[in-house]
């Protein structure tokens, strides 16, 4: 019997994970709101000063956190998202024309990521039919219902965040921080995963793995997670 083998995906930190990242690239960022966003990678990209970024992300962060950090430094050229509220700087740049924005339905955004990772070039969806989202798109009726043709994304880089990961790139997410991370991990040509806890190979239970390491090219132990809450809502303790 040979010794256990695995393909190591480990890089020392977020800065090292950005090797090959250049200006004017398309990048995916996992997360919903501020939940499950790749905090370390965003900071490292800000530090590196990469510009002309086309961002594919469900949201655009808030003024001083998440992708909002890259908006402030004008590193983002175009934003592809489903919902961009809660961000004044974003709104200002969009209305002044500094920032290009493409809004697409959330389910379509998710499926265009999944399709990219799954080798499906395009698919039909009913979402957006009869709206401005359908403009210029091929329409076809299935089972009496109109659908529009949507295409898979292409992304040289995807940045995702997981709860736990092993050195072979296997990932486990926690709670609703999973959101867009799995299908963006699938879609990226180079997927960078940052994790709260990086463990040795063999320490994750194979039945519990959400994303197999084959979809991850680089993984690192994240540091100093802030995990900000956007809307803190609580109820009173009643007797």
């Amino acid at each position: 019997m040979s010794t256990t083998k695995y393909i190591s995906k480990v890089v020392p930190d977020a800065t090292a994970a950005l090797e090959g990242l250049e200006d004017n690239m398309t990048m995916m960022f996992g997360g919903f709101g501020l939940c499950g966003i790749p905090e370390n990678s965003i900071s490292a990209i800000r530090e590196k000063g990469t510009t002309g970024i086309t961002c594919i992300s469900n949201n655009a962060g808030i003024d001083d956190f998440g992708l909002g950090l890259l908006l402030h430094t004008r590193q983002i050229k175009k934003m592809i998202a489903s919902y961009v509220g809660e961000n004044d700087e974003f709104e200002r740049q969009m209305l002044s024309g500094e920032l290009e924005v493409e809004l697409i339905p959330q389910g379509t955004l998710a499926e265009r990521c999944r399709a990219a990772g799954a080798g499906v070039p395009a698919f039909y969806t009913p979402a957006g039919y009869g709206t401005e989202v359908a403009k210029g798109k091929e329409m076809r009726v299935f089972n009496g219902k109109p659908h529009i043709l949507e295409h898979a994304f292409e992304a040289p880089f995807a940045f995702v965040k997981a709860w736990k990961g092993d050195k072979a790139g296997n990932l486990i997410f926690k709670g609703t921080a999973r959101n867009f991370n799995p299908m963006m991990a699938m879609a990226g040509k180079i997927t960078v995963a940052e994790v709260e806890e990086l463990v040795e190979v063999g320490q994750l239970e194979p039945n519990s793995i959400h994303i197999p390491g084959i979809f991850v090219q680089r993984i690192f132990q994240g540091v100093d997670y802030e995990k900000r809450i956007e809307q803190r809502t609580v109820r009173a303790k009643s007797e």
Partner: protein
Amino acid sequence: MGLSKDQIAQRIAQELSDGWYVNLGIGIPTLVANHIPQGVNVEFQSENGILGMGPFPFEGEEDADLINAGKQTITAMPGASFFSSELSFAMIRGQHVQLTVLGAMEVSDNGDIANWKIPGRMVKGMGGAMDLVASAENIIVAMQHTNRAGESKLLTNCSLPLTGVQCVKKIVTDLAVLEVDPERGFVLLERAPGVTIDEIRSKTAGRLVVEGNIPEMQL
């Protein structure tokens, strides 16, 4: 006097059936969860990736990794599950969710809905609303009958960019419960306590169908 937001939610909760999976939008729809009738078991889906969404957490028990589609901190009920966005919208597009309740800026009398954009003023995005309205078999709109300027939100044609076409089935406002018949228009089913048919008529810009005796809502 029309209904309060909470009473609109209370009236919509009467539409819930045992065994349904339900998606609640942001705003008034969220309040529906507080009024589930006795003996009715439903599970709430939030499109960011949870089935079996529970109430807000107790103070000090908030978890940044556990939020709803409105980015509010929530809890998970026993039996809850978490999943990816792709799987969440498979549930929605695949019609595994029985009821969608959402807010609207405008609804037309053939069931079109506009709720995501005011050109030049508010462009926040559609989020999951377009996927939800394009696929859900049963859509209830929760909204005020008129906007802040006092203008009807129930129109012949929506003036704002559409979210979906011919999809709204029922509307519960502060004044009335209406069904959408794409052929005939808004069919008045119930009126809020103390609200007259004349008032509803004067505040409904689209075609309104009034047939027989219109009962008051039972709350």
